[in-house]
């Protein structure tokens, strides 16, 4: 059962119209029925009114007729003679005779005093009404007399010389009732009250009215009582007029039935008409609703929606046109947006999103394919030197060429500022390489731009999918990596090499985890002994950081420090290491070990203005002379930004710390510059020291460096000493500090006292051999 509120437009329309029609028809029908009923009732009442008037009129006329008859009687000479004779028997017989002539039912003769002279009836129990003569002028009097209604007429007898009154009575009889009944069409009864009981003495019912006296009741009849005995209320003489209710209403019932049938017919007809109209009215609305639904389906990419043909005009047509126009605009705009979303606006090729979508479809469907990527190596340079508009022309020319030569490509897309990707059906590896080389050649052919030939340098990469990348993320990353590698490669065409991406991921993970490692103390500090070469004594340790990664295992400092430099985390790392070393050193100094520290600084640290302040804070109140702290900086670090590096070094030097040039001999520092640096030490790169015993060239270089440093007033440290021979050579050449596995491996701070002890015991050995060798 659907509620009204759920009905559609047509349903509501039909319901409303039918309801309206029902209400109107029922109201009209009810009103008509009520009016008819009222009318019939009124008609009956009118009939009674007419009956009442007829009754009065008939009585009056009858009285007039009787009076005129009586007038004749009282002027009859014989009658007058009889009165004048004074003979009672004669008088009574004459009265009887003459009243019969007049049709009277009784007659009484009175003298002028009202005394009865003669009467045709015995007036014992039923005396004449009082004051009858006084009212003689009124014409007639209706009285109940002996249980019957009589009309009494009083006529003066005025013969010359005679004065008397003739009272004549006429019965209200059935004949009278009949006249009234036939004239008025009502049933007529004359009644009088006798002993407080209504008694009907004359009655007549117009035959066509039906009904018998037995059914008389107010339910059965419309009744009107007309008081007749106005002079004597006690007699309660009245005429009762009755109209048969049933007969009277018969016509009403007939009409009501007809009206009912009519109402029913109209109702059925109206409902039919309402349904047809509602159907007609709602048709365009339904069409529009279907049209709107069709538009909705089009949105979800189904069928096209054609606007319906409407037979109506006006608002609905306007609505349809608006819908159609809106839909058209919507579709155009959507197409535009879709195009813009999937196409590159400069070249008109598919864009990155379109390519990735197409690729994803292939990957999901597990359809192998080949991909060739192309990067314009010097686009930014072109943009810078020849303008962006020219750059765009270059891109367009490249795109046109790609379109021209690769019509079979699944997708040709510009996926980045200077990057194009071609998605192809799966080729064999060899065919793919051929294709890539062909592409490269095609682009080597000079482009014609603004009537000038122009050649671009390109890198081309290839990937076989899904072998080289199974997911979009892998794909995006690996294409990029391959391009990066290709840029550095000699061969302009490069295929993705498995593993390239894994290194990349490892670096990303290291960068990501480094901060947590610093905070959680995953970094461990190790210290490698540095010995005074002449004394053979442990004077300093170089702080080295180690990282035991939870999943990657040990990570080399070279790797994560260089990544920290790239990711901008190096300052945090430097600060952390400085603090850790300071804490450890305070520990062993407190144990009585007189060992200085050497800490490596990153090249980035030298351009970090906060570094001197950080060092000063970290080593405030240092228990040893500040010169026992050596900060090692690489030669290449000094070269990146010599001015700022020099500034930083000057500030550090002012703090009193020792500064050392690390890895000396591998960079390109000029000696003139070296002279100006506020450093106290050169540390010879271990590549010169590791094979010092066997390589005469290295010996030469090391000796030269030592001599030169000494000449400049700088101390010299050597690292990478793996055998005692090298140690003795360096000792012979006057090297100041030495460091290497032969002297001691890096160790935790806790092992330092033991190592110091061991080195102390070996001291004689170190110094003894030296004497022999140098000698």
């Amino acid at each position, binding site marked *: 059962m659907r509620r009204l509120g759920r009905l559609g437009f047509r349903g509501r329309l039909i319901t409303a119209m039918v309801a309206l029609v029902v209400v109107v028809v029922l109201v009209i029908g009810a009103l008509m029925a009520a009016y008819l009923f009222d009318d019939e009732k009124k008609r009956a009442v009118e009939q009674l009114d007419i009956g009442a008037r007829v009754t009065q009129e008939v009585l009056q006329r009858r009285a007039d007729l009787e009076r005129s008859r009586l007038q004749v009687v009282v*002027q009859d*000479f014989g009658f*007058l*003679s009889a*009165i*004048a004779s004074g003979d009672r028997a004669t008088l009574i017989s004459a009265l009887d005779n003459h009243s019969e002539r007049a049709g009277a039912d009784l007659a009484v003769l009175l003298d*002028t005093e009202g005394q009865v002279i003669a009467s045709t009836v015995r007036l014992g129990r039923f005396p004449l009404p009082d004051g009858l003569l006084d009212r003689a002028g009124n014409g007639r009097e209706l009285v109940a007399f002996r249980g019957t209604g009589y009309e009494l007429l009083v006529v003066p007898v005025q*013969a*010359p*010389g*005679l*004065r008397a009154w003739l009272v004549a009575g006429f019965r209200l009889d059935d004949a009278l009732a009949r006249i009234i009944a036939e004239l008025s069409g009502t049933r007529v009864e004359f009644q009088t009250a006798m002993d407080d009981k209504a008694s009907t003495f004359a009655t007549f019912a117009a035959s066509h009215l039906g009904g018998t006296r037995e059914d008389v009741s107010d339910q059965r009849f419309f009744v009107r009582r007309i008081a007749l005995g106005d002079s004597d209320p006690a007699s309660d003489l009245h005429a009762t007029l009755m109209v048969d209710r049933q007969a009277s209403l018969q016509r009403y019932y007939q009409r009501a039935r007809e009206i009912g049938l009519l109402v029913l017919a109209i109702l059925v007809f109206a409902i039919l008409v309402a349904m047809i109209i509602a159907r007609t009215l709602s048709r365009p609305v339904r069409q529009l609703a279907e049209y709107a639904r069709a538009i909705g389906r089009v949105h979800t990419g189904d069928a096209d929606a054609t606007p319906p043909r409407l037979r109506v005009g006006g608002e609905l047509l306007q609505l349809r046109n608006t819908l159609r126009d809106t839909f058209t605009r919507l579709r155009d705009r959507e197409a535009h947006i879709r195009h813009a979303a999937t196409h590159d606006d400069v070249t008109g090729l598919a864009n990155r999103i379109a390519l990735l979508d197409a690729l994803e479809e292939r990957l999901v469907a597990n359809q192998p394919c080949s991909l060739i990527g192309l990067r314009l190596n010097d686009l930014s340079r072109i943009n810078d030197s020849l303008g962006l508009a020219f750059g765009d022309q270059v891109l367009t020319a490249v795109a046109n060429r790609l379109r021209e030569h690769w019509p079979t490509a699944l997708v040709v897309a510009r996926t980045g500022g200077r990057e194009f990707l071609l998605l192809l059906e799966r080729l064999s590896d060899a065919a793919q390489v051929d294709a890539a080389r062909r592409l490269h050649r095609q682009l080597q052919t000079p482009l014609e731009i603004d009537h000038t030939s122009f050649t671009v340098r390109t890198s081309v990469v290839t990937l076989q999918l899904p072998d080289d990348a199974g997911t979009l993320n892998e794909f995006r990353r690996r294409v990029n990596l391959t391009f990066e590698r290709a840029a550095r490669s000699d061969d302009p065409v490069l295929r993705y090499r498995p593993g390239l991406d894994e290194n990349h991921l490892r670096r990303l993970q290291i960068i990501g985890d480094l901060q947590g490692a610093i905070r959680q103390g995953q970094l461990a500090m190790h210290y490698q002994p540095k010995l005074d070469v002449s004394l053979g004594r442990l004077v300093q340790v170089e702080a080295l950081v180690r990282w035991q990664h939870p999943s990657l295992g040990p990570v080399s400092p070279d790797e994560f420090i260089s990544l920290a430099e790239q990711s901008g985390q190096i300052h945090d790392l430097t600060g952390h290491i400085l603090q850790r070393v300071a804490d450890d050193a305070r520990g062993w100094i407190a144990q009585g070990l007189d060992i200085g520290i050497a800490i490596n600084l990153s090249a980035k640290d030298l351009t970090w203005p906060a570094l001197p302040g950080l060092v000063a804070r970290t080593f405030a109140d240092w228990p040893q002379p500040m010169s026992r702290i050596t900060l090692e900086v690489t030669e290449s670090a000094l070269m990146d930004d010599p001015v700022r590096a020099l500034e930083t070094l000057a500030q550090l030097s002012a703090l009193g710390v020792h500064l050392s040039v690390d890895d000396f001999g591998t960079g390109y520092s000029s000696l003139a510059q070296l002279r100006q640096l506020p450093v106290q030490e050169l540390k010879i790169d271990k590549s010169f020291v590791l094979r010092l015993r066997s390589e005469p060239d290295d010996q030469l270089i090391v000796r030269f460096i030592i001599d030169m440093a000494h000449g400049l007033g700088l101390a010299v440290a050597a690292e990478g000493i793996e055998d005692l021979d090298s140690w003795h050579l360096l000792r012979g050449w006057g090297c100041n500090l030495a460091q290497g596995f032969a002297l001691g491996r890096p160790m935790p701070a806790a092992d330092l006292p033991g190592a110091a002890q061991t080195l102390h015991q070996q001291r004689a050995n170190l110094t003894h051999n030296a004497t022999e060798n140098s000698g």
Partner: protein
Amino acid sequence: MKAVIALCVALLAAPGLLWAKDIRITVRDANGPLAGVVVALTGAEPVKPVQAEIYQKDRQFHPQLLIVPVGSRVDFPNRDNTQHQVYSFSPAKPFNLKLYADRPDAPIVFDKPGIVELGCNIHDRMQAFIVVTSTSDIGQTDADGRITLSAEAEDMVDGRVPVTLWHPRLADTTHPVKRTVDPNTPADLTLELTPEPVRDNALDRLQRRFQDL
């Protein structure tokens, strides 16, 4: 008639010369003085009967009022071209002259005092009165409604004089109206009469036709 009345008055006045007194009566109704009212004293003395006649001419009695002493004979000659049936139902003298022309067989003797109303059975409009009187003190008012009667000692009742008044337009013409007057002062009496019937004297069409026969 005047001679008779004058004689009567003379005869009656003679013995009571010492006592006789003139009673002046004026009779009027709401409209003014009434002429023709029959005024009589109630005293009774023998008056000599007379011979009189009321003839019928043009369907009317002539005269329409006749005052006669008791025992007078009245003849009713018919001078119309139609027959008449003259009758009276008055108790003073009921009689009935069957339809006749010319002159009835015998005159009628009016032997009792009273008012006799005459009618014709075939002409209801014809009406006449005969006042049969037993006194000579009787007369009709003049045009000013005045009459003077001579009263004597026996006419007096408790210092006043009873009089009877009668007029054809009284409501009940069968009996005269009784009044008393003070003999020493002129009396003003009033009567209520029925309005004069509107009667055009010209004969109606039917009558005229009959006349033409």
